């Protein structure tokens, strides 16, 4: 299209965009607070940032799908504020849920979008085979889109977006909820597309590491652009401050992380490959100042390291109550800000656990508190959980990993006694779930993904309700409620209506309620999905502390890197366990003589590939 001014290669131009939404509590929240952005022709631009950063809102404004509060948007030289749909025949867009009609077949979806975009029969003849080769969907043209796996849906969504030949392709979080193998394949397709077609690509993702595939990364946080530049530029914010620390033999990496995060000098610490990856804050003097960081070796920073440095800076600058309270105690403590009873307590708990608690490997050889044997769950002719086996030992953090639809949640619900099993045996805390579901439930605490709190009740009333629901009374009830208030720093919030407190506190309250009856096992379903990276780190600190106190924690997650916090885990896909073991054991699966630093994600991809190979061999033999 020739509408863009001659000589100008600016494909997207945004100036000072503001957009607010009602927050459901009578106020408004700013989704975008002054965003300016320029995307140049032929670039592959990643829009990265945690959930809630404003990525989707920005994309929708660029697509003309929502009116802006203030600011300008131009796409391919068209003023989108005045003519929201002016650019639509040269821009293709795939929204978060891929925009597919699940009750139409692959071919019918493709035809629909081809018709809507006015693609001629001649063009289809050449483009369809191209798209089918690219996405590997050629064999499935007659299958209903609803029957495709997440990865295949994602590819079909992309194919539908590419039936026309757009100048600009915008993809909103195409890799969320999709297994790592499909994610890798998608990036390969996209890289090839940008190379072979003259295409500009804007792609949003909550996975910071994915930005490294692109030429340009725009890092967003809380409705603002934190920084932008090449992935290397972003990573360089952490240059000279990123270290690898070898975990001493007596403790676990996650315990070292908990100790390290107490220091106010640290921007980030995460377990990685059995060691700990440490990033210092921008104003930290040096790694020598941190007593726990022995044998620190400087390593090359990644984009996510640079992001954490910037994020800590941004949080320190924004002293607004909202940010400080939504974020964990670490940053507030580091600045010694505002009468921080809660944050100090948070730190003491984790501090205690790390320094005084018996840090010895409590779990090794511990007895199994959860035994899963040959577990099967069917829904009609669909096998959601297919002959699954594993044991969970006392005091261990156990992870169920896998993409959406892997069978994690179904397994989880059966473990919690919320869903009957089709066949197999399941023992939780010594009770057979086939016969003693009620007794087993007394021994477990469960935090659902959506918290299951009563949002119209106050924090205190929620605690009181759950205490009575678990049958606590008298002195014990009083003690437990007091314990929960202290442990989860809820004292200042007791009379607040639960619906109105920040999500971070809701998560704490939900955990507090689930622990009131002192369960031996705590089940957490996707506790970190949709959570800010800072809050995610706080969460794992807390979980570490609880495991050290002897609580067995079972957690599901689709963030592969979080597996590093677990003592042991199973990786699930399509209802089956593909691999199980400690993080080290899992990583070993993907190691080759020339690749010593495999991640959990590498291992996952490796295991899936092996499985597919075996499947192909089997079908070839038959």
């Amino acid at each position, binding site marked *: 299209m020739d509408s863009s001014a001659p000589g100008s290669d600016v494909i997207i131009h945004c100036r000072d965009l503001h957009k607010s939404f009602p927050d459901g509590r009578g106020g408004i929240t700013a989704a975008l607070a002054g965003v300016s952005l320029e995307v140049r022709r032929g670039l592959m631009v990643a829009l990265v940032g945690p959930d809630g950063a404003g990525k989707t809102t920005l994309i*929708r404004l660029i697509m003309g799908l929502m009116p802006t509060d203030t600011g300008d948007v131009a796409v391919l030289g068209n003023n989108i504020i005045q003519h929201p749909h002016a650019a639509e025949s040269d821009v293709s867009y*795939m*929204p978060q849920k891929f*925009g597919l*009609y699940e009750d139409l077949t692959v071919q019918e979806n493709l035809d*629909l979008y081809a018709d809507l975009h006015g693609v001629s029969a001649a063009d289809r003849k050449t483009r369809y085979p191209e798209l089918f080769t690219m996405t590997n969907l050629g064999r499935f043209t007659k299958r209903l889109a609803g029957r495709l796996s997440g990865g295949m849906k994602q590819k079909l969504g992309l194919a539908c977006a590419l039936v026309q030949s757009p100048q600009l392709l915008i993809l909103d979080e195409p890799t969320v909820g999709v297994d790592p193998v499909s994610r890798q394949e998608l990036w390969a397709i996209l890289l090839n597309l940008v190379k072979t077609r003259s295409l500009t690509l804007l792609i949003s993702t909550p996975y910071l590491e994915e930005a490294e595939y692109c030429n340009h990364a725009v890092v967003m946080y809380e409705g603002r652009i934190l920084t932008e530049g090449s992935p290397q530029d972003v990573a360089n914010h952490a240059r000279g401050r990123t270290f690898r620390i070898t975990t001493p033999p007596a403790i676990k990496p996650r315990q070292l992380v908990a100790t390290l995060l107490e220091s106010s000098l640290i921007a980030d610490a995460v377990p990685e490959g059995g060691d700990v990856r440490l990033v210092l804050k921008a104003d930290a003097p040096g790694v020598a100042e941190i007593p726990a960081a022995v044998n620190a070796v400087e390593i090359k920073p990644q984009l996510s390291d640079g992001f954490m440095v910037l994020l800590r800076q941004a949080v320190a600058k924004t002293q607004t109550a909202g940010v400080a309270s939504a974020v964990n105690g670490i940053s507030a403590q580091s600045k010694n800000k505002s009468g921080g009873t809660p944050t100090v307590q948070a730190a003491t708990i984790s501090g205690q656990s790390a320094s005084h608690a018996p840090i010895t490997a409590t779990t090794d050889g511990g007895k199994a508190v959860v035994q899963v044997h040959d577990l099967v769950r069917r829904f009609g002719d669909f096998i959601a959980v297919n002959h699954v086996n594993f044991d969970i030992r006392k005091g261990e953090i156990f992870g169920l990993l896998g993409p959406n639809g892997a069978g994690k949640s179904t397994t989880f619900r059966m473990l919690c006694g919320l869903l009957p099993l089709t066949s197999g045996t399941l023992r939780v805390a010594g009770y057979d779930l086939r016969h003693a579901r009620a007794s087993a439930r007394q021994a477990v605490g469960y935090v659902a993904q959506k918290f299951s709190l009563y949002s119209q009740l106050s924090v205190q009333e929620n605690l009181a309700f759950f205490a009575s629901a678990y049958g606590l009374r008298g002195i014990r009830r009083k003690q437990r409620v007091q314990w929960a208030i202290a442990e989860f720093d809820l004292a200042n919030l007791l009379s607040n209506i639960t619906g109105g407190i920040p999500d971070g506190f809701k998560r704490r309250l939900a955990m507090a309620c689930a622990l009131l009856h002192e369960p031996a096992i705590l089940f957490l379903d996707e506790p970190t999905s949709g959570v800010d990276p800072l809050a995610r780190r706080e969460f794992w600190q807390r979980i570490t502390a609880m495991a050290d106190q002897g609580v067995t924690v079972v957690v599901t997650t689709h963030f592969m890197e979080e597996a590093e916090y677990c003592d042991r885990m199973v990786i699930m896909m399509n209802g089956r366990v593909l691999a199980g073991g400690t993080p080290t054991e899992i990583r070993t699966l993907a190691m080759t003589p020339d690749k010593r630093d495999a991640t959990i994600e590498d291992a996952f991809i490796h295991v899936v590939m092996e499985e597919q190979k075996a499947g192909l061999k089997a079908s070839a033999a038959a």
Partner: protein
Amino acid sequence: MSRKATFGKPRRIMAMSRKEARQMMRDPSSIALGIVLPLLLILLFGYGLSLDAHHVPVAVVMEDHSPSAQSVFGAFAGSRYFQPRAVNSMVQANRLLTAGTVDGIVRLRHNFSRNLRAGHANIQFTTNSIDANRARLIENYASGVVSGWLAQRELTHGQHYYQPVTIQQQIWFNRSMDSRYFLVPGLLVLIMTLIGALMTALVVAREWERGTFESLFATPVQPGEIVISKIIPYFCLGMVGLAVAVTAARILFQVPIRGSLPVLILVSALYLLVALGMGLLISTRTKNQFIASQAALLLTFLPAMMLSGFIFDIRSMPPAIQAITYVLPARYFVALLQTLFLAGDIWSVILPNAAVLVLMAIIFLGLTRRLTVKRLA
């Protein structure tokens, strides 16, 4: 862009309608609503909720065993409205009535035939009046049976009994006074409302829920095209529902169609457009299926059932409620249906009612078109 715009519109409408039709056909609930539901409603209302009384069980207390008393019993037994059983005492009859085994008691006292000859015989009739309407109906039927019996007796005996006034009933339109004859046409209102308003409100909400609108809005499709392509398949489904209901009404219950069939089809199509307009209008304001279905039920289906004159006569409603019925499209459709089924092509009724429906279709569809924009919020 112009190269695409020329032939784009009809092609896009085709593509969108085809997509909508495929989704409809693959969704078992739309088939259920379009074909199974009309049949089910016809059967339910036709057999279950008839407002007539048939084969009412009554106890006849035979305190008198004379031939005259016997012939009264015979008259009840011969009527299709009653199923009499002879008992010997009032005590026994009362017990049957209390137990609900019978709905009424006919008492022929021991002096019945003597009094009959003397010209002042009376028959005591007791009914279970829990359901007052039904009781009144049964009472009327009973006196009908007795007067029939008297007339018969007059003929055979050549005797004249003193009967000062005879009531001659005149029944217009619904000649056999079968309540099915007005209930079944009324059902068309319910069926058309469900298909037109509820289903479209649901399918639009589903597009919001599944996020498919977001990618549709990013294509060159126009809002008007989205509206038209939602209307076409559901209009067809509604007409299938109409055909099913009318055929079933004809075959199963021999409901007459005294007006002409083309006019019936035309006014039904008109009402269907109004219902589609209401459903789509609701869907412009609701973005999840639960709220959409609640809104459609409350705003379209329930008023069509309660206030259209289909079950309850509008003239016997309080004035305020009567005033409300004027804004209900169902009211006009019920008037049209009852005329077309039971009276005939009475243009003085058809034209004004149809005119109101045309106006409403224009208003609802026009508003929908205006309120449908390619925006997420």
